[in-house]
């Protein structure tokens, strides 16, 4: 009940001498994520973990190792390869799956790749639709997976803020934001009809900062592209465009050596680099603190259209 006047005084801050050790926010997030991983592995027939090679996937993979230790991870990893991933990413992917002792499945929309699908000929949205969304849906159907873990976080983008931890998809793999189940306490409703599936986001409550701090504390390996190095880049206004497949230089454009790194890993034609000197994880964290723009700002894909993430999700994307 309220104090008589407004003589509300703050409780004294806990001092380390009197207070029992508190669990840090990272330990709390870790415990929550492990709980989710175990629930899904126990309640679904055929779960799979989407492994996208990025920092979030690396954290998710480590959490899976922790959840089932000393046993193996009881589901396979699935990578949807668009054919436009940086070469370093693929090497890293194979090494990570091996060291985690997990089965790795790779799925490519070979038809679309053979037909020369790329974001320059098509627009980004249609390219993503074929190489990512369609490929993902095909893979899930092919293997008959009924639950798929993804590394998405709610802090990434506005439409993700309302995403459930168990995100319900109809038999076409589509997301209806109006038809999601309420999630209470840590009690997840895992019941689905044949053909339906769920996407599960064990990192829902993590922020970009949490992910990097965890990688630092746990010494989790991440792809070298995250660290600043002299790299050959095309410089277009503010944008740094890495040289990889399918890059079309404009007349007169010459690549330059720029000390740079990637902030998030996507397909090479659609992922810009940033100028940076951050070549260690603490340096990346320090850089993050000084950032004035959000993580996805350098992913061209989200700029196609207002609310484009939401549209992709409705169509079956993560």
């Amino acid at each position: 009940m309220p104090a008589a006047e407004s003589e509300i005084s703050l409780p004294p801050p806990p001092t380390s001498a009197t207070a029992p050790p508190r669990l840090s926010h990272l330990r709390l997030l870790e415990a929550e994520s492990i709980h989710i991983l175990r629930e899904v592995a126990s309640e679904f027939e055929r779960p799979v973990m989407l492994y996208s090679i990025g920092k979030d996937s690396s954290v998710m993979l480590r959490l899976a190792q922790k959840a089932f230790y000393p046993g193996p991870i009881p589901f396979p990893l699935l990578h949807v390869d668009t054919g436009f991933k940086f070469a370093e990413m693929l090497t890293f992917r194979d090494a990570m799956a091996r060291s985690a002792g997990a089965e790795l499945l790779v799925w490519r929309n070979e038809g679309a790749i053979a037909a020369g699908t790329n974001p320059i000929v098509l627009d980004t949205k249609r390219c993503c639709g074929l190489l990512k969304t369609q490929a993902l849906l095909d893979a899930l159907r092919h293997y008959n997976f009924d639950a798929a873990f993804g590394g998405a976080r709610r802090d990434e983008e506005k439409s993700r803020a309302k995403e459930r931890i168990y995100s319900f998809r109809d038999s076409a793999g589509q997301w209806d934001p109006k038809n999601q189940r309420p999630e209470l306490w840590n009690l997840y409703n895992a019941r689905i009809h044949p053909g339906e599936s769920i996407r599960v986001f064990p990192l829902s409550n993590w922020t970009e900062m949490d992910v990097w701090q965890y990688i630092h504390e746990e010494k989790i390996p991440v792809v070298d592209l995250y660290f600043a190095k002299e790299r050959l880049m095309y410089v277009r206004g503010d944008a740094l465009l890495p040289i990889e497949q399918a890059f079309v230089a404009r007349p007169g454009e010459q690549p330059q050596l720029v000390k740079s790194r990637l902030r998030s890993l996507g397909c090479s034609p659609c992922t810009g680099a940033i100028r940076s000197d951050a070549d260690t994880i603490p340096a990346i964290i320090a850089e993050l603190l000084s950032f004035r723009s959000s993580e996805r700002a350098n992913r061209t894909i989200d700029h196609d259209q207002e609310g484009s993430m939401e549209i992709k999700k409705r169509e079956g994307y993560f």
Partner: protein
Amino acid sequence: MAALTTPSFSIDEFLQQEREKDLLRFSTAGSVDDGKSTLIGRLLYDTQSVYEDQVRSIQGKGTTAPGQIDFALLTDGLRAEREQGITIDVAYRYFSTARRKFIIADTPGHEQYTRNMVTGASTADAAVVLIDASKGVLLQSRRHAYIASLLRVRHVLVAVNKMDLIGYDQAAFRAIERDFSLLLEQIAADTGSPVESIFVPVSALAGDNIVHRSKAMLWYSGPSLLELLEALPSSLDTRAEPFRFPVQRVLRPDHSFRGFAGQIASGTVRPGDRVTVLPSGRSAEVSRIVTYDGDLAEAYAPLSVTLVLNRELDISRGDLIVLADAPATVAKSVKAALVWMDRRPLELHRRYLLKHTSQTAPAFLSSIEHRTNIGTFSHEPAETLEMNGIGVVTLNLLRPIALDLYGENRGTGAFILIDAETNSTAAAGMITTASSYETEGSHIHAGAWGPVTAGERAARWGHRGGVLELSGPTELIDAIERSLFAAGAISNRIEADDDAFLLHPSLLEIVTEMQIQSGLLALVVHENDSGTLMARAEDRQLTLDANDPLKAVSAVHQLLHSTGILIFFEKADL
């Protein structure tokens, strides 16, 4: 973002400070236009938790005066909502200060309000209730306070907003404080759960007392809303409470290791502790607490760990491990407060599944004690609960589960109900009364002196009366009968080719009908040596390959489920 890197900034100090940060979850709610979105936007903006590109993208938009940022837009979400200009669901926001990381469950004050507020409050340590100072206490604020109390959210911060609109008037603030405190007392009397409340006069738009203390209200000498949020004790700390460990999964990678994986719901455990496994009641000693990062000398809530016991006990998912000297209640019948979440209203004797900790069990609602009117807090008789309705019901379970009252333990006292047919999450439940299964003996349906009803039988046996016709090889029929027996079904096998029935065909019909009437599962079997099995229940018929007995048994169970004869549903039961 937060704390710009200044020359004196040291990343090592920063990382050290981050290591000590804990986590507080709070929910927010108010009526439409109380200023909730503005308040959250303000919290995020003033704690430098939004990026410049996000601020840029909303500049010059919105409803505020030119030059003023409409903070509400920072928390705007889905396209459908943008079009309608409203928020319709729970959205989660993240920010952190030097002391704490915060998770906000932002719940709207309209459409499906109760359902969303309950969802947000279920994981919250604190609730921020908004009141528009220019309008006074509206229904929505009462509702939120009631829900916070019902869900046992320990701390309620009442933000009396738009103080700028009433000239920062102290008397008006005090009047709201008085009225709302009275209301909170009434609520506590109804829910049995007192709320600790603190009132703060704020202006979300102008930023008064949100992050920084206001210069416009010198009559208020208390802390700002954010200072309060930073100082509240986190209710996650349940280390001193009885140890509760719901088993999520049995880990047995090889013959030398058998561990029980789960997340500690409350309390503390150490190797050497004597524990009891419920509902079986068998005891053992904890020999190791295993994690990927090494064995622990002590583990407490809410850590996720793996326990190894000193002797082999039959333990499976859904069992509850407790300290031997602090047992939980094992019950088959409970009273619980329900908040109805589904568009389809509650129906007594409809098939629901109760998900409680890590187990799912068939449940039957045998009666509705009352419905609570949130406007008046009065209890009304009710036949059903509709979406957003709150009431108290009696639930019967097919088999006993280990639990605590919600008032004593959020983790082992909460459950959800799932509609067994549509799979939607039908209700949120909080156990208010439970008596021990052993001592209640045959009084499960105490009060009813009439004949035992079909519903009561179904509630106990897990199936209603029905006929399963089988024709195929004897061994396979034996296996099916046995599997049903193992699942707890009360069945009776009738050999249809018996002379008596061949002589008097109508006798078979009579016998079968009598069994159905008594709620039994009648197995009418024709044994033969064919390579296929024919199974029929009601109007559905299957022809199965008799050489794949596992598949055939499981298909027959499915058949019984799909006709609604068999009610228990779990994988484990197959």
